[in-house]
């Protein structure tokens, strides 16, 4: 039975896509068969860390939604990005063409199609793990992703708006009986007391904080270059991401 992992944040710019790419890669390196779906149709971005160029993308998630192709046709093998042997990793990107983004925003779509797509993908590619990079905020699509997830990873920055928004998402996820919920605090200022921050957040949400990632110039530069936990495993941030991965991979 495949495990569905959704990575969500209340607001954009939290580092959600980057974390998704890293977690999916670590699962593949553990020998799992993995796929990542970029459901952030409005502002796609996860193709970047996997090095999937626009020229290689003939079909995207958008085309599946419009009934133009089966979902597996929009799944690209990006295992080469791992740089070493592991399980296969596939990516279903959202189209980065402005016209496609415009069309999906204008027309909208039946989110139930997504669920059909996920199930078909799991079956066709014989997946162990399906990672969903969601759109920030709460809408029908994100609620669906949360509802079907075995694990929900909520990523937040330590600021007022994220704390408030995450409280809403946690409450909704609890009502949807998500079996495993993990919090990841990103962009914490190095001058903060991480242990205190972790303890306070866990107490407020009653959800475990799986990782606290610092905000450093070095990390910002490295993160944009790709899969940080694979390229720089020596960094504290990589070790923290590793802890999240362990929790997800645990049977």
């Amino acid at each position, binding site marked *: *039975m495949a495990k569905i992992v959704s990575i969500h944040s209340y607001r954009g710019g939290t580092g959600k896509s980057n974390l998704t790419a890293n977690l999916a890669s670590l699962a593949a390196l553990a020998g799992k068969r993995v796929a990542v779906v970029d459901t952030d149709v409005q502002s796609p971005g996860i193709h970047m860390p996997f090095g999937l160029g626009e020229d290689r993308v003939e079909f995207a998630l958008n085309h599946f939604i419009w009934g133009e192709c089966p979902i597996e046709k929009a799944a690209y093998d990006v295992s080469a990005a791992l740089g070493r042997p592991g399980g296969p990793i596939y990516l279903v990107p959202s189209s980065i063409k402005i016209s496609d983004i415009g069309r999906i925003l204008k027309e909208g779509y039946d989110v139930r199609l997504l669920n059909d797509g996920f199930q078909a993908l799991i079956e066709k590619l014989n997946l162990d793990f399906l990672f969903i990079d969601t759109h920030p905020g*709460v809408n*029908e699509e994100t*609620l*669906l992703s949360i*509802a*079907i997830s075995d694990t929900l990873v909520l990523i937040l920055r*330590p*600021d*007022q708006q994220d*704390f*408030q928004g995450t*409280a*809403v998402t946690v*409450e*909704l996820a609890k*009502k*949807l*009986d998500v*079996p495993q919920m993990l919090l990841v605090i990103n962009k914490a*200022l190095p*001058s*903060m*007391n991480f242990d*205190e*921050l972790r303890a*306070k*957040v866990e107490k*407020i949400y009653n959800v475990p904080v799986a990782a606290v990632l610092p905000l450093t110039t070095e990390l910002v530069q490295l993160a944009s270059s790709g899969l940080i936990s694979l390229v720089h495993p020596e960094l504290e941030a990589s070790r923290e991401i590793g802890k999240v991965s362990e929790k997800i991979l645990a049977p």
Partner: protein
Amino acid sequence: MPIPTLSPVWNFYWAYGICASLLGVIGLYVGQKTRTRTMQLLRQVEREKTRADKFANFVIPIGLSLTAETNLNQLLEKILLEAKALSLADGGTLYLVTPEKTLRFVMIVNDSLKIAMGGTSIKEVSLPPLNLYDADTGAPNHKNIATSCALGAKSMSVDDVYTEKGFDFSGAKAFDQRMNYRTISVLCVPLKDAQQKVIGVLQLINAQDPDTSRVVAFAPQLRQMMELLGLLAAAALGSYLRIKTLTDQIVDLKIQIDEAKKERQVTEITESDYFKGLQTRAREMRAKVKGQNS
């Protein structure tokens, strides 16, 4: 007996001799005077050069090193100790302005008495703070040199506290009596932040002559140098306090959840037909998975 008279030739020699000696003495006197003046000028040039060197080689690097300090106690200690070392003062006190409008003693040092309280030392300063304003009348307290310096936002110095009439030095005098010490010269420099707000006062006691180690008054050049150091110290302190406040806000304030707002938003979503449908399907799905696994 008739007094022997000298011949005119001898008279001439006598007169010549006396004049030459006189001229010699005058020459010697003038030469000495010129030499003294030249020496004084040279010393002044030397002092000016030392002062310029101190500005470039000490004050600015100290200011820069202060900005790199991330521990408040170490920063405060560095400000006081560097100022004391640079001015060759025997002692010093650092005060911070509190929100209650008082000057709080944060650190006291005195070399000859071997005293170090506050800063990174284990001994706390137990002295009560100085009121910047009279508790009853609200009038500004210009009685103490430190409070007056903070209120006027300008540096002040006193050459000898025992002959000074303008300020009340009863505290210093009591301290002297108790410790068998003699407070003589005092210099107070305000620590002003970028908005020209006084956030503290740096006070130095008993400047010493570099050659004789005798206690002297704080020279005007030294006062100027301390004012510059005070500016740099205040900038470092201001920036530290700003970052600290920001961090405290992030950790303490921003973790507050508006429960009423959260409930409103959650209810709005959970009462929608879409959510209810999703909830039912999710439950069915999980029950199915559970059934398959068991």
